[in-house]
Structures are given as structure tokens and as C-alpha cells.
């Protein structure tokens, strides 16, 4: 195929985009709509996941120490616990600090006048929530540790819930992606359908399949590109807007900053162009066999 023919394909594709501007807009709209929906859901679920991770990372192990452990023992235990693989953070809570916290929690000096009944303790965070149980077990075995608590049961339940929420999110994501692809290719198919006679005629006067296909393919790619660029623009704009509102009004929820989605945006452009190109070249197949 000559280079000049390729020039021709590009020229044809762009002329056709403009001549059929009405259908071009419909296709671009469909691509943009579908990707806006898909992208919104993606943003929601990625952020939700981010929040879930936050929740997971809140899970702590508390190790209560025997009253007999002195400050040397505490230092030793601290380094022993720190060296357990999977441990991310170790924090010592003296019995006084514990009492203070308890008072805070109950809201009043209920234990006033009596001896502090609370023990010294460590609070340990692990790097991966899945390791909580095993780390807790290892700490339990250390000398000087009287008891280990980590909300057994509750943590497993929480993880279970999080697991199911993630799975659900994934399922919905897959469904949405499939539906989006369907919507886009459906629209492109209709625009090709509206031009079925044109395709037939080209074939009748001796065009090869690829000669007919190329301009459509390029056209589809351009439509997909423009459509996904619009989707990305709207999503990015909307997200930044929301991000700032959330940051201002609900500081305790930390959303992922827009910058981290740049690679997703590229993915979207790729998806848009891919579906556009293959949607249209696939759709013309049935009109080529004349």
C-alpha cells in the first residue's frame, strides 16, 4: 500500500467526520457518556478502597505486660516486638497513660482515689492486616507479655466485610466496563449501519476490504479519542472540584489526589481509541461481503 494511499485514508476519515458530523457527534457522545460512567465508578471505588485500607490499617494489637516487667524489660520487649516481621509500628503505653486515656474515654474521673489498676502495654500496628493474627501469636509467646488483644473475631469480620465489598466493587466494575463497551460499539455499529449503502457501493466499484476499512478505522479511532478526551476532561474537572470540597468539609476522609489518576487517563484514551477503531472496522464486516 502506497504512502499516498494512507494520506488519502486520513483525508477521507477527516472529511467523513465532518460530512457526517451529526453521526460523529452521536458517537463521540456515546463514547464520552460510557466512559464518564465507567470513570465515575472507577474513581468512587478506588477512593473507597483507599478508605477501606485506612480502616484496615487502624487495626491494632494490644499487648498487656506483666507488672513485674521493669524499664529494661520494656526496652527489650520493644525491640523484640519491632523485630517481628510484619510489625510496622510499636508504641508503648505506660499504665499512667492508659489511665489517662481511660478517664478520657469515660469522660470523668471515675477511678479517682483508688490505685491505678491498669497495666503497661504496647500497641502494635502491622504492615498488612492479614498478618494481625500471626503477629499477635508471636507476641503472646514473648516473656513478660501477660495477654494479647486484637479484637479477635471483630477483625476477622471486618476483613470479611471488606473482602466482600471489594469483590462486589470488582463485579460491578466488570459489569459497567462490559456495558460501556457495549454502548460504544452499539452506537458505532449504528453509524456504520446508516452508511451501509456507501460501503456496498465502494465494494461494487472494486475497492478491497482494507481500502474500505481503513478510513472507517481511522475515523473510529479519532471518534474514540475525542470522546474519551472529553470524558477525561469532565471527570478530572468534576473530581478536582469534589476533591476540594471534601478536603474542606470532611478533612477526616482523605481522597486520592487527581495526579494519581494520570495513568488511568491514558488507559481511558487507549480504551476509547481501541473500541472506536475496532468497533467500526468490525461493524463494517457484514457490509463488505458483496
Amino acid at each position, binding site marked *: *500500500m*502506497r504512502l*499516498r*494511499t494512507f494520506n*488519502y485514508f486520513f483525508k477521507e476519515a477527516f472529511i*467523513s467526520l465532518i*460530512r*457526517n458530523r451529526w453521526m460523529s457527534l452521536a458517537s463521540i457522545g456515546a463514547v464520552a457518556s460510557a466512559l464518564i460512567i465507567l470513570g465515575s465508578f472507577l474513581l468512587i471505588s478506588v477512593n473507597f478502597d483507599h478508605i477501606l485500607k485506612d480502616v484496615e490499617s487502624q487495626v491494632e494489637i494490644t499487648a498487656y505486660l506483666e507488672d513485674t516487667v521493669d524499664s529494661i524489660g520494656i526496652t527489650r520487649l520493644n525491640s523484640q516486638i519491632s523485630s517481628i516481621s510484619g510489625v510496622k509500628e510499636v508504641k508503648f503505653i505506660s499504665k499512667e497513660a492508659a489511665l489517662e486515656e481511660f478517664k478520657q474515654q469515660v469522660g470523668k474521673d471515675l477511678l479517682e482515689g483508688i490505685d491505678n489498676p491498669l497495666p503497661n502495654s504496647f500497641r502494635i500496628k502491622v504492615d498488612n492486616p492479614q498478618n494481625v493474627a500471626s503477629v499477635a501469636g508471636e507476641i503472646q509467646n514473648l516473656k513478660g507479655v501477660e495477654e494479647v488483644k486484637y479484637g479477635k473475631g471483630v477483625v476477622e469480620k471486618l476483613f470479611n466485610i471488606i473482602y466482600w465489598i471489594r469483590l462486589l466493587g470488582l463485579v460491578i466494575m466488570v459489569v459497567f466496563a462490559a456495558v460501556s463497551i457495549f454502548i460504544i460499539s452499539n452506537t458505532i455499529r449504528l453509524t456504520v449501519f446508516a452508511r451501509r*449503502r*456507501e460501503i*456496498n*457501493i*465502494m*465494494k*461494487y*466499484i*472494486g*475497492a*478491497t*476490504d482494507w*481500502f474500505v476499512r481503513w478510513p472507517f478505522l481511522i475515523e473510529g479511532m479519532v471518534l474514540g479519542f475525542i470522546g474519551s478526551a472529553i470524558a477525561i476532561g469532565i471527570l478530572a474537572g468534576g473530581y478536582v472540584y469534589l476533591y476540594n470540597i471534601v478536603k474542606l468539609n470532611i478533612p477526616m476522609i482523605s481522597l486520592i489526589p487527581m495526579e494519581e489518576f494520570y495513568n488511568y487517563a491514558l488507559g481511558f484514551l487507549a480504551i476509547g481509541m481501541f473500541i472506536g477503531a475496532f468497533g467500526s472496522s468490525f461493524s463494517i464486516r457484514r457490509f463488505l*461481503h*458483496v
Partner: protein
Amino acid sequence: MIEMFGVSKVYPGGLDALKDINLKISRGEFVFIVGPSGAGKSTFIKLLFREELPTRGQIFFNGKNITRMRNRDIPFLRRRIGIVFQDFRLLPEKTAYENVAFAMEVVEASSREIRRKVPQVLERVGLSHKADAKPSELSGGEQQRVALARALVNEPDVLVADEPTGNLDPDTSWEIMKLLSDINKRGTTVVVATHARELVNAMRKRVLQLDKGRLVRDEERGVYSNEA
């Protein structure tokens, strides 16, 4: 150059559009196909360039059996046949010029060649002044002439025209026939399905007469009809 052996065409629905056609058209001939409405003229033409496949029989074009042709070879068959369709089949979104140019793009002609030949061929069919009009902005006869220009532009081995003067006044029809005759004299085989009795009678070329799908007459230097 074109040979048919026992060719029949039965359309789905049971109609026998062509029945057992045997004939040979040699290179450089000028052939009229005549016959009443629905006789099978267009079907005959559709078989030639593989718009339709025959139900039975074999068709050879330049010695190649086109009924056995692979799909991807069909475009190259069609490029050697210039066709004027009865219903024109112009690309509705392209101008007259572009419709003709498109046939050259298809064969990957150079843009120089295209810029040279398209105006020339439009001139020959008398449509230079309508080069920039789309089919919807052309009269019936003008559309027909664009279709003819498109069929001519690649200088095909065979020119096949289905009712090329149906929408033309007698004078323009005569000019078109002279044009076809010219082209034929330069070596192109010409096959014309037509109802234009006067033209057929005046030209005295080979006439194939179809009736209800049968080839009922094949006459050198024939006339439109032996009765009347």
C-alpha cells in the same frame, strides 16, 4: 473474453431470472442486451462482476472462472470492468468530481493522474460545469452521466452499462452512444443493456435478446426487435 456455460440464476423465492445461458463475447466486441422489463438483463450484468453468483453454470472472464473466485480476488475483477449501474450507485456524500476520483483512488492512482483524468472524463460526458455538485443536486440524467464517467475513468477492459440512457434526452443519448462506440473502437469491450430501440437499430451491433430469462436471439448487426 467473457464466456458463459449453462448459466442459470434462480433468486431466492423461486424465480428463474436466467435460464441456461451459453455465450461468448470476444475482446473488442460491442454487444447490446435487449428484452422486456424483468427479462434478466440486469441479472446478467450482476453475474459478470460477481454481484450475484449463478445458481448453475460457469462464467469465465479472460479465461478465469469467476464463479470459483476467492472473495479477495473479486475487487481486482471489478476493477477491470467499468460498470454503469441502472440505479447509478453514486456515493451520496461525495461530489460528482469526487465520485469519479474515488474510482481512481480505489486503484491507487497517483493524485497527479487523478487531477489530470477526472476533469477530462467529466468533460467527455458533458458535466464539467457540475463537478462540485452532489448527486442530490444533480438531475437524473446528470447522475447517470456521472456514473458513466466513473465507469470510464480507469479505462477498463470491459465497459458494462445497464440502461445508460434511461434518463437522457435523445440528443444526449446519441452522444453517449457515440462515446461508447469511440471507446469500443479503441479496443474496449462494451456491453450495454438497453431499451433504446432507435439507438440499437441505428448502431447495428451484436444484439442479445433475453426473454423471461432465456437467450432467444443472438444476432450480429442486429436490431432491437425482429417483430414490429
